[in-house]
């Protein structure tokens, strides 16, 4: 077998210019066609012999796993990998993506040495051009984040750009970013090198073998059915690229992997008269939507056009594959853009326009991780045209995940479980990727919302709220109001409101926040994930006590904030649990936890028919009544005393509101403000909403949206799972010791880790920063991911930020680390360490002084209004 594999490699190596070979459509030798019997079993079966699949195989084998089979339907590295433009770029928007690309870069660089296979690796560096000031800001943000993780890069002037590249027209540029360590490499050769190294480590590779479907028994992978027979296995890794979606659906128990291919074009030219140096940097002109790299003395240039052509919507279609033709008319805007950027290339002769479909995902992030429905089924696909850049790093994380059960970095942003079946409609994917592909080069501004694939999940109040001026955002397919535009207010058009500075809704959200503080607001929060756990005996309590860190054995009617921790003490979920009765619990989690939390609970709950877990998200509409007058509204509607004596905070009661009975009322608001959450069976939603609005009128009630909620919770230092908290954050690191009952009388998941951490101290600390010298009107706004500097040294990044209308300052939340000055190793972060620093937050290269706080500003929690504060304007309706 190994010999046969080497022959593949040998054949590839005889022609180092892989592109030429692909043009010639080198037909595989007939000798390859003879079938070899597959092994009957293996520990891991990887499907896909592209750069991703080979990288996973490589890393698994390096971690000591030997019993691995890699299957490829055609030939190794012959899919998108073969046609890849070969640009390795570390300038990414997410830190995790930057890290993956950085790792890949280092991996590929030494690969030739390790395997002896030429990979064509050349460190060329890359230049990102900015035609507008906004673009430059975007580049500066990336630049400051690259620097802090150790990737050199700098912002340079247009003049300097001209020095880096001979043909660049720089007259319309305002600046650029230079990343000197970026590289170009032949991706097919990298894949072959990885395969070769893996094979040397014992991985068996079979090409021309298609996976038909994966065999599953009791939610566990048992084997793989191929066109050459069955293989029993424990783990299956789907690295099938653009066919991953189809493959996922082919199971008896379908695994939803939302991705979709689009045609992607790039141009190859013949060499210039004086051939371009092979270390000429790669140029990316996002405003012109193109990239340009040197290629065999000529250039290779492609781009991400505004009007992508989705392909293979109906699955693998031979007709479409054959018809993958050059479409020059489609390429025209990109060609114009290229000639505008490099006018001297007019006389350069065309060699070919290559059409290579690329795969995109609904949120422009790749997909990795274990399926929520089939354990042992792993996925790594949907690279959004960055397969080469991410392949190495992503393969490493996935290998760690398979071997250790979790990767060494937080990869929630890339986790397959952020999606559910609801994102797997072909129509949705087709429409969404048409928006995603242009987005790769679009300006990414704070608070961007997708425009396609919307209005999928809505609350019953959607139309009512929409008619009142609601502007919507989407989370996990659910429409949520951002804010409400008053009738007389004129907001900027969507395109114009793209800004890194103060947004146009600032005043609107201010009035909503003010209303929450002084009167009462209602926010539709129906998107929250809601589960009910019931049992006939004490099983529900037992399992919850084991899975959650706080003590859930509380009197009926009490609500407990608690974390669902993993073995390492990190947050798998952060939720509120109400004890409805002795044997039933109501669990509220963030919206995007619907799939992940369900999978986690299912995985850890004992098989017991008397223990029932039910997803009741769709059954309830949630209204959040925030504000000091919420109590008045509710007591008027229910004829029940709602004062703190009768209804203390964190309390849950079923009561009637208006005509509707059985409304679950909880005294909490997720913001730290006084008020109530109403969980309303959906058929009563409109009635209760109408009643609340009618009665609330005299208390100045108004609608509010998530932006107001966000401002309120961040100024009170409330962390949100998915944004601030993740699987690598423990309660002790974010000041939530009170939500952990280490001595609740029984063991729970993560307890040991927490005990140890309590003893050893924490290595990072969730901190609140109040920006001091930041001018809200004139300065760039923080978003998230901004580097934090302590005494001039980098200590971490922010995770979320908001403007606090009460403090009249920007508030950023983030983690403070303590990197050793000599080794860079992480050290214990003490309260003293945090308190004794001078802090700065870096927003796109500008540093703003910040005051660090480990506890929320106390004055924000005093709700009592002093009598002499009352003024006439309080009598106006809000």
């Amino acid at each position, binding site marked *: 077998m190994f010999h046969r594999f080497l022959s593949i490699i040998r054949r590839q190596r005889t022609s180092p210019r892989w592109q030429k070979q692909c043009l010639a459509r080198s037909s595989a030798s007939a000798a390859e066609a003879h079938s070899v019997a597959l092994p009957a079993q293996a520990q891991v079966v990887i499907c896909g012999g592209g750069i991703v699949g080979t990288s996973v195989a490589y890393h698994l084998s390096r971690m000591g796993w030997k019993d691995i089979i890699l299957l490829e339907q055609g030939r190794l590295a012959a899919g998108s990998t073969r046609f890849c433009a070969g640009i390795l770029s570390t300038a990414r928007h997410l830190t995790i993506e930057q890290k993956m690309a950085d790792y890949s870069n280092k991996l590929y660089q030494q690969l030739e040495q390790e395997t002896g296979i030429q990979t064509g690796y050349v460190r060329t560096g890359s230049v990102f051009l900015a035609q507008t000031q906004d673009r430059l800001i975007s580049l500066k943000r990336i630049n400051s984040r690259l620097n802090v993780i150790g990737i050199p890069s700098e912002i340079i002037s247009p003049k300097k750009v001209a020095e880096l590249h001979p043909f660049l027209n720089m007259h319309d540029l305002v600046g650029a970013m230079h990343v000197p360590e970026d590289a170009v490499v032949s991706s097919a050769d990298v894949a072959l090198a990885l395969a070769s190294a893996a094979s040397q480590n014992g991985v068996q590779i079979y090409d021309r073998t298609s996976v038909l479907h994966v065999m599953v028994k009791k939610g566990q992978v048992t084997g793989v059915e191929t066109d050459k027979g069955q293989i029993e296995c424990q783990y299956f890794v789907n690295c099938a690229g653009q066919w991953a979606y189809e493959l996922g659906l082919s199971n008896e128990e379908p695994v939803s992997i939302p991705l979709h291919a689009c045609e992607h074009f790039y141009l190859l030219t013949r060499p210039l008269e004086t051939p371009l140096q092979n270390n000429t940097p790669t140029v990316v002109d996002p405003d012109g939507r193109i990239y340009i790299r040197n290629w065999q003395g000529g250039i290779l240039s492609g781009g991400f056009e505004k009007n992508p052509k989705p392909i293979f919507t109906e699955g693998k279609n031979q007709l479409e594959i054959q018809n993958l033709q050059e479409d020059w008319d489609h390429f025209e805007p990109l*060609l114009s853009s290229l*000639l505008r950027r490099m006018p001297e290339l007019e006389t350069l002769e*065309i060699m070919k326009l290559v059409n290579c479909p690329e795969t995109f995902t609904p949120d422009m992030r790749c997909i990795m991780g274990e399926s929520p429905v089939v354990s042992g089924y792993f996925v790594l696909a949907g690279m959004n045209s960055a397969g080469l850049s991410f392949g190495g790093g992503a393969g490493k994380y996935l290998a760690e995940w398979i071997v250790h059960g979790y990767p060494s970095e937080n990869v929630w942003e890339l986790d397959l479980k952020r999606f559910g079946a609801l994102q797997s409609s072909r129509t949705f994917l087709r429409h969404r990727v048409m928006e995603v592909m242009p987005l790769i080069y679009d300006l990414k501004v704070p608070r961007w919302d997708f425009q396609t694939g919307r209005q999928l999940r809505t609350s019953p109040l959607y139309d009512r709220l929409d008619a009142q001026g609601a502007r919507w955002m989407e989370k996990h397919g659910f429409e949520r109001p951002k804010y409400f535009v008053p009738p007389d207010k004129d907001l900027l058009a969507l395109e114009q409101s793209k800004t890194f500075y103060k947004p146009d809704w600032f005043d609107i959200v201010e009035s909503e926040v003010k209303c929450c503080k002084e009167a009462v607001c209602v926010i539709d929060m129906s998107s929250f994930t809601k589960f009910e756990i019931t049992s006939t005996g004490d099983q529900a309590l037992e399992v919850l006590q084991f899975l959650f860190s706080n003590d859930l054995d509380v009197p009926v009617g009490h609500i407990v904030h608690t974390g669902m921790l993993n073995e390492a003490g990190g947050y798998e979920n952060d939720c509120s649990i109400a004890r409805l009765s002795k044997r039933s619990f109501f669990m509220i989690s963030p919206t995007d936890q619907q799939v992940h939390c369900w999978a986690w609970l299912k995985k850890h709950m004992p098989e017991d028919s008397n223990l029932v877990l039910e997803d009741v998200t769709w059954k309830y509409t949630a209204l959040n009544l925030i504000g000091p007058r919420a109590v008045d509204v509710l007591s008027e509607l229910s004829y029940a005393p709602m004062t703190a004596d009768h209804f203390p905070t964190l309390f849950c009661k079923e009561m009637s509101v208006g005509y509707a009975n059985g409304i679950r009322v909880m005294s909490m608001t997720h913001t730290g403000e006084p008020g109530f959450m109403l969980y309303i069976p959906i058929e009563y939603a409109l009635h209760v909403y109408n009643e609340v609005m009618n009665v609330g009128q005299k208390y100045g009630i108004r609608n509010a949206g998530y932006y107001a909620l966000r401002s309120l919770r961040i100024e009170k230092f409330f962390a949100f799972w998915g944004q601030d908290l993740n699987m690598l954050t423990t309660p002790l690191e974010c000041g939530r010791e009170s939500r952990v009952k280490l001595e609740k009388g029984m063991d729970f998941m993560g307890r040991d880790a927490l005990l140890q951490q309590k003893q050893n101290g924490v290595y990072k600390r969730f901190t609140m920063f109040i920006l001091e010298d930041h001018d809200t009107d004139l300065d760039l706004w923080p978003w998230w991911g901004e580097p934090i500097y302590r005494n001039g040294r980098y200590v971490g990044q922010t995770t979320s930020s908001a403007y606090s209308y009460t403090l009249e300052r920007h508030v950023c939340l983030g983690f403070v680390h303590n990197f050793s000055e000599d080794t860079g190793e992480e050290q214990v972060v003490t309260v003293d360490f945090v308190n004794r620093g001078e802090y700065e937050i870096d927003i796109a290269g500008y540093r703003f002084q910040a005051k660090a706080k480990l506890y929320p500003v106390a004055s924000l929690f005093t709700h009592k209004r002093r009598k002499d504060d009352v003024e006439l304007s309080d009598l106006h309706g809000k």
Partner: protein
Amino acid sequence: MSISALLSMGRCCCRCCCPRGLWMLSAPRCDDRRMCVCPGPRRIGIPVRSSSLPLFSDAMPAPTQLFFPLVRNCELSRIYGTACYCHHKHLCCSSPYLSQSRLRYTPHPAYATFCRPKESWWQYTQGRRYASTPQKFYLTPPQVNSILKANEYSFKVPEFDGKNVSSILGFDSNQLPANAPIEDRRSAATCLQTRGMLLGVFDGHAGCACSQAVSERLFYYIAVSLLPHETLLEIENAVESGRALLPILQWHKHPNDYFSKEASKLYFNSLRTYWQELIDLNTGESTDIDVKEALINAFKRLDNDISLEAQVGDPNSFLNYLVLRVAFSGATACVAHVDGVDLHVANTGDSRAMLGVQEEDGSWSAVTLSNDHNAQNEREVERLKLEHPKSEAKSVVKQDRLLGLLMPFRAFGDVKFKWSIDLQKRVIESGPDQLNDNEYTKFIPPNYHTPPYLTAEPEVTYHRLRPQDKFLVLATDGLWETMHRHDVVKIVGEYLTGMHHQQPIAVGGYKVTLGQMHGLLTERRAKMSSVFEDQNAATHLIRHAVGNNEFGAVDHERLSKMLSLPEELARMYRDDITIIVVQFNSHVVGAYQNQE
């Protein structure tokens, strides 16, 4: 008031210049070059005053600039109306060829009041001279589009189970008015009790009353004629017992295509009488219904009903006046009935049905499916001469018109050419005052000896659809007189198939530089954009019909001028245009063929 110039374009669309080019000959010479808006040939000239404000002739003052988007805005049209009206006097009224319509008559002003009463532009503009500085007409592309697309309508045959089983994919229709109001009408409907779809264009003259009535009623008559005996019985029983009626037609209407509410009851009663007669005639033995016969019967019956309703009158004075207007105005009709591969075209008058056929090499050819009923059709002239005594041989067709007056030789309505003189006089005398005061209606055609001279009986052609038959164009003469049928078929054919997609560029083994490729692509895109502007084949055709230059490409300047003509002038350069483009489903047609 002096008119300075009217430079005519080479091709004049209006019928009044029977000797074509008369306009050019009789147009006064341009005596002030500066005042000529467009001195070149083949352009539309705009009449301007030479007397006042020559300095402003080149620069359009800002306030008037604002008017241009609103060409139909009365302000502007009035201003231009002034010029136009004088122009009429000068050229039309004093010339031997009086009328600009297909129906010629004297005296002219009476016609005007009959068709559309209006105030005197002359008086009105006396006090508004300040606004009438010479102007250039330019519409922006979006303005042109909004005019062209105002009446467009598209219908796609709904798909069942992902498959369209109908031989029709759908149709696009549109109309561009020249008359105000437009006298053309269009209809489209699916027969619900029988299979098949009906599509028709109707060109009215002497007002729009008749074409409106025919567009509302004719399809019901056809549908009823096609119904089997049992269905007719069932419907009649339902009416009798007050049960819910079976729906007969599913209309596909543009919002501007209205139906008269007031006459609905009257029309229904006439229709019911018709089907009652059909029931009585047919004892239910023969079940085969001949489409051709049904079409002819329906046409004749409707015309008969129109005539009868006018003779009988109606106690309601509004309705009474309406039925008279319908009867005294006229309309031609060109109707297609498509059922599977069976295509019938029934034509009365000079609208035309044209089949677009794609040859194996991809080129387009036109197959005419109807004959014009006018003086250009020798068979028609022959027919007329045969139907009347030899003594009338010279007068029955005179100057290419029926009795020297009417362009089409077959039409609905037009009772002036159908009723005896006695009947006409009796009806007019007993009719309402408006009718009695009207010079036109009182006027009896000359040499009117042996009525009827006119019939609504259609000529029906049958065509069995083949897979290469891609589409059918139904259009009123407004289109056919500006464009050759081959051009029509080519433009629609290329539009529907998206020619540019068929021939992608491939570099192949040629030496092409980036610059050359870029030039080529830019050119292709410019060409394509005119296609992409239209989502409707009929709109695309109108764009070409009105805006084509001598090279067969759409010239925006020309288009903009043609569309910004004030309504008084528009009719002189073009007629109402109404187009329906029906697209056939070659797969289904092919499947039919294979079955047999």
